[in-house]
């Protein structure tokens, strides 16, 4: 037994070893082939997949925001611009001792406890090569002080960002609108890829309507980053395309005059150049400061805006729908002349009220004693209600509707801004559809003096007045005159759609109506004669007083004792000079009372300024 264990068969051992070595070599080949197969799979078969993953690792697309287009008024005055705002950034890895640096910075500029707290918080989250903002909105003097001391602070840098600024403050705010931070809803509405580099987007007004043109095209930089996200080099660059500059039809000087003339009143004013339809001024009162919204409005400031009760953000010029009142009389009158329901020199007797056949209800004139024998001219000058009750009764609602429709009442003007409303031009069909009842003859009467169901926006009234001034020439009211491309330095005029003119039987009838409107301002009995004395030009106008609530039969109307909120709206629409109209405008003063006393003087100031080219305040 012992013997057997000690005997070694060397020959057999070597042979066995060699067999095993060959097996081992074969296994080695198999193992190497397994590795090669695996690597073949990764490097050849799945190469494209991993190549993409590798690029995804290292290549980042960074957006560079385009500069927003500027906005100018018709005289080239800048009314919306981009201003650099400075912030102070610290790059931690370049600063030796952050606490000492903060201390030294606090010696030369104001840094609050809160700034430092927020900075320290951010310091923990950020990579050391990423700049962290210590202070934003540096003042100019702070920037100057820092610039002088810059050598003392390595790793401390200014960051400049262009932000929207409205140099006129609240002036023309309802024309311009404002920009603010883009929100979720807007991101879904627009091409969100264009907003990757920046947050401002036009929220209302011109800023919103021409957002696409103003915004420009976002630029991209393809950069290579390392695992921490540090940018190592730029692989590819597409520079951003700046937005187009807008040149508006607004005259900023006239706009300011108009805003000042409106005083503390709530209301609206729209002035149009009748030859072109260009809106010269568009005021809605009260105003508010659009600059508040650019950086995101504070909750306090916002609730103050909301609580004022006057809804400053509501653009009365486009969205405010008012009963137009006597403003409608020239249009009804023209319709009556055109259809032959009344002659220009025909007298209609006014005894202070009007009775419909077989009805007891009295339709009262504003003048209790009546206007007695009244022609068209006198009816317009004195704003006789009974005359127009009679005329409306003769014409009937259907003819009134189709004639006023020619001037664009009851339809949006399609002005290039946001929030426009259509007003309301009532008809038999409309009433059947919405009120489910038939049209009553009494309703025709009050439509004849612009009351009842009828509603119009200040813009509609101004536009219709411009059409009247130009004997039926209808121009699309618009705010944009031209666009300028910064890259090509090309200015493209705004292509304004054409409208069919209002055509009536005889040109003389335009003149007859306008002469009535001239009497309003220049005549002895004109409702706006108080503004006519010192005019150096001839103005055609029409006052209006829109009832806020109905006055009961036989009740006395005591203006003084009525709460201001319940007082009538004062309206005035006018154009001048009569011979070659340069400006047409409509003013509405909410709860202003009488159109002749309150609204007409405002219109006079604005037209005076414009025609005399005198904008001194």
């Amino acid at each position, binding site marked *: 037994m012992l013997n057997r264990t000690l005997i*070694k068969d060397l020959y057999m051992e070597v042979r066995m070893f060699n067999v095993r070595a060959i097996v081992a070599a074969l296994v080695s080949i198999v193992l190497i082939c397994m590795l090669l197969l695996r690597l*073949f799979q990764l490097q050849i078969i799945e190469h494209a997949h991993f190549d993409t993953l590798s690029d995804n690792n290292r290549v980042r697309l960074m957006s560079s925001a385009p500069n927003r287009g500027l906005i100018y008024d018709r005289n080239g005055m800048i009314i919306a611009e981009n201003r650099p705002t400075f912030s102070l950034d610290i790059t931690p890895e370049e600063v030796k001792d952050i606490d000492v640096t903060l201390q030294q910075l606090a010696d030369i500029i104001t840094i609050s406890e809160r700034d430092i707290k927020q900075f320290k918080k951010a310091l923990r989250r950020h990579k050391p090569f990423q700049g962290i903002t210590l202070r934003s909105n540096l003042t100019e003097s702070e920037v100057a002080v820092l610039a002088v001391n810059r050598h003392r602070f390595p790793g401390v840098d200014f960051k400049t960002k262009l932000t929207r600024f409205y140099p006129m403050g609240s002036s023309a705010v309802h024309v311009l609108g404002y920009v603010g931070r883009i929100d979720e809803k807007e991101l879904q509405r627009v091409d969100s890829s264009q907003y990757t580099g920046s947050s401002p987007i036009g929220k209302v007004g011109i800023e919103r309507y021409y957002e696409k043109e103003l915004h420009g095209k976002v630029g991209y930089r393809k950069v290579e980053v390392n695992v921490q996200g540090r940018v190592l080099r730029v692989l590819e660059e597409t520079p951003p395309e700046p937005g187009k500059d807008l040149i508006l039809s607004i005259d900023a000087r006239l706009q300011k005059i108009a805003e000042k003339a409106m005083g503390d009143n709530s209301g609206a004013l729209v002035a149009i150049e009748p030859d072109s339809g260009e809106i010269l001024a568009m005021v809605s009162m009260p105003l508010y400061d659009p600059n508040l919204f650019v950086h995101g409005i504070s909750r306090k400031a916002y609730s103050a805006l909301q609580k004022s009760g006057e809804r400053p953000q509501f653009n009365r010029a486009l969205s405010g729908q008012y009963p137009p009142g006597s403003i409608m009389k020239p249009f009804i009158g023209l319709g009556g002349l055109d259809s032959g329901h009344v002659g220009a020199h025909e007298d209609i007797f006014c005894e202070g009220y009007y009775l419909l056949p077989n009805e007891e209800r009295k339709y009262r004139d504003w003048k209790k004693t009546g206007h007695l024998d009244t022609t068209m001219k006198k009816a317009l000058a004195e704003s006789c209600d009974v005359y127009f009750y009679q005329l409306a009764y003769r014409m009937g609602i259907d003819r009134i509707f189709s004639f006023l429709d020619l001037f664009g009442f009851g339809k949006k003007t399609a002005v290039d801004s946001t929030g426009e409303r259509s007003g309301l031009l009532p008809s038999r069909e409309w009433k059947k559809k919405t009120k489910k009842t038939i049209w009553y003859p009494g309703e025709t009467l009050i439509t004849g003096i612009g009351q009842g169901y009828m509603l119009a926006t200040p813009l509609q009234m101004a536009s219709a007045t411009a059409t009247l001034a130009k004997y039926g020439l209808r121009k699309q009211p618009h705010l944009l005159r031209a666009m300028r491309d910064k890259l090509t330095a090309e200015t493209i005029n705004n292509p304004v759609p054409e409208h069919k003119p209002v055509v009536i039987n005889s040109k003389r009838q335009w003149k007859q109506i306008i002469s009535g409107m001239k009497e309003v301002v220049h005549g002895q009995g004109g409702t706006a004669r108080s503004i006519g004395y010192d005019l150096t030009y001839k103005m055609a106008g029409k006052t209006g007083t829109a009832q806020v609530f109905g006055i009961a039969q036989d009740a006395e109307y005591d203006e003084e004792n009525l709460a201001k909120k319940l007082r009538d709206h004062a309206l005035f629409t006018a154009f001048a000079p009569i011979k070659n109209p340069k400006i047409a405008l409509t003013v509405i003063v909410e709860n202003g009372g009488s159109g002749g006393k309150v609204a007409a003087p405002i219109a006079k100031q604005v037209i005076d300024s414009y025609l005399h080219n005198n904008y001194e305040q």
Partner: protein
Amino acid sequence: MYTDNLDSQNTGRLKLLQSMHIDAPLLLALLLLTACGLGVLYSAGNQNIDLIIRQSTRLALAFGVMILMAQIPSQNFKLWAPWIFLLGIILLALVLILGDVGKGAQRWLDFGFVRFQPSEMMKLAAPMMVAWYFADRPLPPRFKHLIVALLLVIIPTMLIAKQPDLGTSLLIAAAGFFVIYFAGLKWRLIGSFGLLMGALTPVVWHYMHDYQRQRVLTFLNPENDPLGAGYHIIQSKIAIGSGGLYGKGWLNGTQSHLDFLPERSTDFIFAVLSEEFGFIGVIILLALYFFIVMRGLVIASRAQDSFGRLLAGSLSLTFLVYLFVNVGMVSGLLPVVGVPLPLVSYGGTSMVTLMAGFGMLMSINSHRRLLRK
């Protein structure tokens, strides 16, 4: 007493190498491999010349150790084997009692002037011991000898696994097992052993550390944890895969140079090579390794005694296992088990051990007793 190898007396230079007991083909392959390794390391280390100088110094030292080992007749290794093994076991025990803790594992002994990793020594000592045990016994071994040999393998394996250093303990187990295999372990037993290992897997799982389990889980599905434990593997696969056929070019690997690839100078250096030199580079590198393994097996089959044969065979196959485990891990075939790419990864200890092993191979090849014809 000794004579040169008879079949290669072509040039004077070869003669000189032979007189120094150096095997020319093996030396050439090792030099080529380490030179390639330095090139890849230069790129992986972001062209840090200090890193290259340090690695070159280590390589010089390792080649020195190899030449030194080649001078020692293999009979001496056989004589010293039990004592080296015993010393290794004692040192391993010491490590467990008072070793330095590094990266959550005790691997180092600090003698003040030098830090020493006894597990490295065991990589050579374990196969030497098993070879010594079989050397004078008739082969194939009998069952009780097999049990003793298995114990000789299991003891150091367990001690190292306890540190815990799963990678090294597996390599040592493999080295010991290869000796047993070459000694003539019955095929049937190898088969049953494989089955036993399969059955033991749940038991092993139970005794594993959390981080070891995590590695296995991550290996099975790296995409499950892309930012945590799976990150290494995902980034490594991206580096390899994006290399394609020709690679991105030397120094142009984006995964490595932009820091996406972790441990790229050490355990994951193969991914750097794959990214920059592509499938072509990979084939060349694997061919070099394959040549070295084959040369080792040739040397083993020509060895004169059992001890030399068994040791040489085991060392050659262990070298292949190193390669397989590392490349398998980097390419996502195997779990992450901290095994460096032999002779290429940055780091000293394992390189010296490996080259000492190649020195032994050369010694086995060159110190021959004259055979009575």
